[in-house]
């Protein structure tokens, strides 16, 4: 397997394919070509899961080439994946395939450009999850914005321009600080290197520098995740994006932020992350509670799911930064410490949220195609007209609530368990999501699905067609599978998370903290 550059394929096949689709244009089956490319990419990504040696948890399938070596800048094209990256890559290739399938009928103008944008975005996001060189990471991380910008702006809703530009400026503003930090770190390495392990090994950073670097990471990735209070772009972007755009934003783009915390922020500046963990924990808790409350009063289905996304992503950052509050506590059994549980919970939550939010947005998109509105008040009693759809929607809603047996339960449960070890009140506040989440989700479900049909338009609704049925069934299966049997996923990631623990672990950073202060 090592000789075959499978990772490069996963980046460049969709990008080149996307360009091909773009050049060929609308005349010759852009839809079919794009779907085929996405399917091939998904198939190529599958061997990663099977061939990856999860027990060691190291970076595998690595590829290294010299990329830039001039002007005193040394950047390598360094790729590699660990268990966590693989899980996210699979999520990405899987969701892109579904999104392209789901957009079969709903996109009617500039089809080729639409399909191409998604394929290019898929390749760039894969690159983010694979990069082992900080500058390469940055290039993919920023490059992602261009296709997303166009997807939102060209095919979005009536207020798309405002939402799109806001989204772009927010994320761009966040990430320029990231660039300065990365270059600063580069100048601090002995040879001048953007290679992530070299950055992890930096020990000569002053406390002040660490803090500034940490804050820049927090802003850059906090905007993506999004962390309260940097989330204000999100409801607008989600609600104005076309269905596919909302799905990609919710399922993939925000995961990039979470992944970046895992891959860059915490390992590079563990001391500062440790010192400021409480801040992130508090912000995550605020997101969980406050965003859930805001979701309660939404009248727009997409906005409701958007706010609930922020709340759910709060669990991700909470899980990550709990690590610093938990280190060394034995939990469940001697092998699984609480902190591994917390990070695993966060990771499972990322994957699960990808499925659940993606499914919800796809389902809402299907309603939108029929009625051209996502206002909750426009719907009532659609169960009688669309029983199949209602069943799926109910399942996704339950997964969003975190009902045991669905994927939503696993991650949240892990994180809440771990936080109980850290502090009772952290766990208590995090657990309120189970009530608040149930409140806003079920209330919305009640208003949309049940009740008397009182509009003639609802009366004319058709149930799911075969294509939609397949898409939703696949997602439903994924959600149930992850809910009942998360072990394949946790086993895939566990070794890598342990490796990662070694880097961020306070046990070897404690002396450094004492020494520097």
């Amino acid at each position: 397997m090592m000789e075959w550059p499978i990772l490069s394929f996963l980046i460049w096949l969709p990008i080149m394919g996307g360009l091909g689709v773009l050049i060929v244009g609308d005349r010759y089956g852009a839809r079919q070509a794009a779907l085929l490319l996405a399917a091939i990419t998904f198939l190529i990504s599958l061997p990663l899961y099977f061939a990856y040696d999860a027990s060691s948890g190291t970076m595998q399938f690595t590829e290294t080439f010299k990329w830039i070596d001039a002007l005193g800048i040394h950047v390598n094209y360094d790729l590699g994946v660990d268990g966590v990256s693989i899980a996210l890559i699979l999520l990405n290739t899987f969701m892109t395939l579904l999104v392209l399938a789901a957009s079969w009928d709903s996109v009617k103008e500039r089809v080729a450009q639409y399909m191409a944008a998604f394929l290019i975005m898929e390749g760039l996001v894969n690159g983010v999850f694979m990069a082992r060189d900080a500058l390469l990471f940055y290039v993919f991380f920023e490059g992602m914005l261009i296709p997303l910008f166009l997807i939102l702006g060209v095919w979005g809703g009536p207020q798309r321009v405002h939402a799109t530009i806001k989204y772009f400026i927010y994320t761009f503003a966040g990430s320029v600080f990231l660039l300065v930090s990365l270059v600063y770190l580069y100048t601090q390495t002995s040879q001048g290197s953007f290679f992530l392990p070299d950055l992890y090994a930096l020990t000569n950073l002053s406390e002040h520098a660490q803090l500034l670097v940490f804050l820049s990471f927090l802003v850059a990735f906090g905007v993506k995740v999004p962390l309260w209070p940097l989330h204000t772009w999100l409801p607008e972007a989600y609600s104005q994006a076309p269905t596919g755009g909302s799905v990609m934003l919710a399922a993939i783009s925000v995961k990039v932020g979470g992944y970046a915390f895992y891959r860059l922020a915490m390992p590079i500046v563990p001391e500062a992350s440790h010192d400021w963990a409480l801040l992130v924990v508090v912000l995550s808790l605020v997101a969980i509670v406050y965003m859930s409350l805001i979701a309660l009063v939404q009248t727009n289905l997409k906005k409701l799911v958007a706010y609930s996304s922020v709340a759910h992503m709060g669990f991700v950052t909470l899980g990550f930064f709990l690590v610093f509050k938990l280190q060394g506590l034995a939990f469940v059994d001697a092998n699984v410490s609480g902190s591994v549980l917390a990070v695993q919970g966060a990771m499972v939550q990322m994957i699960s949220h990808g499925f659940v939010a993606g499914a919800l947005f796809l389902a809402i998109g299907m309603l939108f195609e029929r009625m051209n509105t996502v206002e909750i008040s426009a719907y009532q009693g659609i169960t009688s007209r669309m029983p199949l759809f209602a069943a799926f929607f109910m399942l996704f809603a339950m997964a969003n609530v975190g009902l045991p047996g669905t994927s939503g339960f696993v991650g949240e449960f892990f994180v809440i368990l771990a936080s109980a070890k850290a502090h009772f009140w952290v766990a208590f506040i995090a657990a309120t999501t189970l009530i608040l989440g149930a409140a806003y989700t079920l209330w919305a479900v009640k208003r949309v699905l049940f009740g008397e049909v009182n509009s003639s338009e609802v009366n004319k609704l058709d149930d799911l067609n075969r294509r939609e049925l397949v898409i939703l069934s696949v997602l439903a299966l994924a959600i149930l599978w992850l809910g009942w049997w998360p072990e394949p996923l946790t086993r895939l990631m566990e070794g890598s998370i342990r490796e990662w623990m070694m880097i961020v672990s306070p046990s070897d950073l404690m002396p450094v903290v004492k020494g520097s202060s």
Partner: protein
Amino acid sequence: MAAFEIARPEIFLLAALCVVLLLDLFLGKQSRVITYLATQASLLTTILLVYSSFFNRPDKTVGLDGMYMVDEMAGVLKIAILLISILAFACARKYLRDQDMWRGEFFVLGMTAILGMLIMVSGYHLLVLYLGLELLSLSLYTLVAMRRDDAQATEAAIKYFVLGAVASGFLLYGMSMLYGISGSLELNTIREYFTNQPDIATNLPLMFALTFIVAGLAFKLGVVPFHMWLPDVYQGTPTAVTLFLSSAPKIAVFALVIRLMAEALEPAQSAWSQMIILLALLSIGIGNVVALVQTNLKRLFAYSAIAHMGFMLMGVVMNTHEGHSAAMFYILLYALMSAGTFAMLILLGRKGYEVTQLEDLKGLSGRHPWFALMFLLMLFSMAGIPPTAGFYAKFAVIESVIQAKFIWSAVFMVVMSVVGAFYYLRIIKIMYFDKPNDQPPIEADMDIRVLVSANGLLMILLGIFPSVLMEICDLALIASRL
């Protein structure tokens, strides 16, 4: 004769220029295309001469009694200037025909301007540098005024001429003071003189000279607070001339800055770096902020040019090899981007109609998806968003700035890039998100279509393989001892 060997490309260009001038006299409007072809042929030959005779030198070669010099940097910059001029002339052919300005003077004056630029790049003597600059400037003043019956163009030309003359005066005055202090006009002698001066930072006459020289150069580059002429000139000038004026001369002025500041006055670096940093940061700030409120595309690009020049200067002022080569990389890319954007405006224009306002681009992607995509790539590149080439230019400069421990300047620069991104995004928004108004199709020959497409594709290709151009700059400056 052998002594003139060192200036062979310039001498050829001068001869060719005279031939083209004479040739044009015998050509009518119908056959003027011959003038155009002869011009392009002479430029291509000049490139070959530069490439064949003065390339791959390990060190500087000084000739003509120490007045003229060629080195690797000069070679690369000359070829870049000539290539971009070829692009500019190709676009000008379409524009001049469309706008009923199809006259031979454009090409002749363009060639004299190019000759001036080549001399600026290779001059190693204050007077030669000054003469090169004046040859360039005088040709440009005339080019700007080419549309004689247009009030705006005349205003722009007069403004450009008056302010340009003042700037030249500043520069000449500063140079004369340098001569007074050091007793020499040759750059390497000046450098030696200042190397041996003990208290360079408190040398009052030198400070005086530096102030004038920096002000003069800042005028020519269009750096805040000497930038007032730039937006008016960009706007008033026929687009073909704006294209030319906004790209190749910037490279030549960059060479002038490097020769004067980084070579001759390198020992006095502590004295001038503060001034230039201040000007550069002001440009980055004011250029980007003022560009936000522009509705005229040419004015918008003028303010963006001010900001870009500030970025480039930050590389120069770091006074390290990395900084200089980052600045060179930046200026080459900038010239390419600027030429590309104006070429795009020319491509989209047609007989009696020019694209000047932002509104004119409405719904471009619906009408011409391919060229909209090319424009998008150029604009993202100007904004410095990866994976386009412009990102690496900004990145290289920021890297050298941080390397030199100016971290807060770097933070300021990136924050201003975010502001800058906003107005580029606004253009993209107008092209992609707005509904098209009815516009007839593009009328353009294949050559300009290909050139514009190549320019756009280069933005992404150099974004994926940035080291190609970076290495050229790096190696050239190593060979030039910078």
